[in-house]
């Protein structure tokens, strides 16, 4: 695919993911709209283009691995997996229901395509590190991708993992920080400031790249750069907007795990449909 075409294709996939997120939350139910939509472009790029994965051969030992450490954003991952055909789209309607395949947080035992149980924050980078070490021991070319939230960086375990990952020189590990700047109770900077991020990761021995996390072009460039880094892990600090694509929810902590009114749902649906149609012209 030509690069412009590819970018358009992935932008459209990100919109599609947001559309599914909206449908999964619906009216009157709580759902993590904000953190799911902020990483839609990253998830779309990884799943629909970048990673070596095959829904028809989901357990290929040579596949790349994806972990959503910020597991509360499960909706965006479920949307991508359904769109890729890991399970029927109809399952999305049954998210967070008794006996449903799609649990409130990613569960590898119930959801095809989910690689690990995540959502107890701070653990995903460590699990990814273990995968990267194990894959390297076996001489596999697989790479491991993990998305962390910026609020999640308050967990001390993240920095334990960061230290160990650079000590063991795992260059098959790439972490994204979905830096949307808002945690459950307000702006990260006000609740507990984790800035400046780049020097922190750098001091821990990581190769650091900073990008606009909604720019497919920048995401692709960063991934290419990470591929060429040897002897240390790479972190891509992606500046994003919490609730991106939902006008009333952008930068708004209320939609970390908010309930949509019927009016908000209809506004969001209209806005998304307009963007998706506009894209087709």
């Amino acid at each position, binding site marked *: 695919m030509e690069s412009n075409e590819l970018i358009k294709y992935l932008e459209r996939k990100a919109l599609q993911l947001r559309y599914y997120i909206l449908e999964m939350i619906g009216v009157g139910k709580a759902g993590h709209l904000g953190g799911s939509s902020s990483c839609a472009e990253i998830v779309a790029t990884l799943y629909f283009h970048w990673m070596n994965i095959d829904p028809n051969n989901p357990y290929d030992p040579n596949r790349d691995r994806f972990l959503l450490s910020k597991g509360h954003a499960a909706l965006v991952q479920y949307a991508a997996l359904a769109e890729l055909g890991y399970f029927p789209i109809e399952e999305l309607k049954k998210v967070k229901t008794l006996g449903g395949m799609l649990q409130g947080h990613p569960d590898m035992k119930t959801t095809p395509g989910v690689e*690990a149980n995540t959502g107890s924050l701070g*653990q995903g980078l460590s*699990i990814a590190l273990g995968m990267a070490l194990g894959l390297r021991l076996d001489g596999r070319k697989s790479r491991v991708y993990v998305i962390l939230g910026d609020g999640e960086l308050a967990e001390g375990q993240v920095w334990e993992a960061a230290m*160990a990952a650079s000590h063991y020189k795992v260059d098959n590990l790439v972490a994204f920080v979905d830096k949307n700047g808002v945690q459950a109770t307000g702006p990260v900077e006000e609740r507990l400031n984790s800035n400046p991020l780049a020097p922190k990761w750098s001091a821990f021995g990581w190769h650091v790249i900073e990008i606009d996390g909604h720019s497919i072009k920048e995401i692709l460039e960063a991934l290419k750069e990470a591929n060429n880094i040897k002897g240390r892990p790479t972190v891509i600090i992606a500046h994003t907007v919490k609730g991106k694509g939902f006008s009333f929810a952008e930068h708004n902590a209320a939609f970390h795990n908010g309930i949509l009114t019927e009016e908000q749902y209809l506004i969001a649906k209209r806005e998304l449909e307009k963007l998706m149609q506009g894209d087709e012209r």
Partner: protein
Amino acid sequence: MKRESLREAYGQALVEAGKRNKDVVVLEADLGKSTRSCLFEEIFPDRYFEMSIAEQNMASTAAGLALVGKIPFIHSFAVFATGRAYDQIRQAIAIPRLNVKICGSSCGLSDFGDGSTHQSIEDVALMSAIPNMVVLVPADAVETKKMVEAMVKYKGPVYIRINRNDLPVYTPENLEYEIGRMYTLREGKDVVVFANGVMVSRAMEAAEILQREGISIEVVNVSTVKPLDVDTLVEKVRNFKGAVIAEEHSIIGGLGSAIALALCKRKVNVPLEFVAIEDKFGTSASNYEELLVHYGLSVENICEKVKSLI
């Protein structure tokens, strides 16, 4: 009775497991000289990961290694291996039932000098409460070796707690060991004593003393706390006046609780007595024996409880 180091046996068994199975990997939290995981490092440096004093990262990293087909053994003192990394063990290892083995070394009061911060009196309770977790408490060096072998074969999370001190060996070398079974070490007529860990040797000593007084006790090593061998348990207690349960653990949530619950669920009515640590933290002492006596875990304590049932 010859005394042997459980830790040394554990470390050697780990090396043997590593020789037999290339997927066995070992993670350590800077206590390799104590846990004896250092023996594995000497032979298989590429499959040994020093995660340093970061037990939470160690546990989750082990989950990642298990997810790509490895059989990780993680190590620390029992109090840290379970308590410090409890959430990681629960969320990343036990919920998806990953093939991670957790070794809690220097368990119970066996790190006698270091005091309450380093003594684990509730690790069995913590690990038993987690669904999918198997909980093992070896009585001696021979059983420890057999357990490690069985742990590699078993697919799923297992917790094993290892005593810091050398203990008498009662497990026969030719025992066909299986996770989930209890083993009768001495047959008797009056009272049955269910014990594990260090308390097995104490129960055997108590049996000798009681024998001289004309009291016959049966000693059963319940080295698998979970899953408990309930069928054998029920069959056994029916032949005795009562049962004493002896463990180096809090009276809450350990072997005693597990046995009492199992008998209650099967509606088996038999008098029970408990030799365990009351609801208290540990403390420093100049030697291990002094601590065991202080917390009511002596041979005499077992004898008294047995007599109270006759």
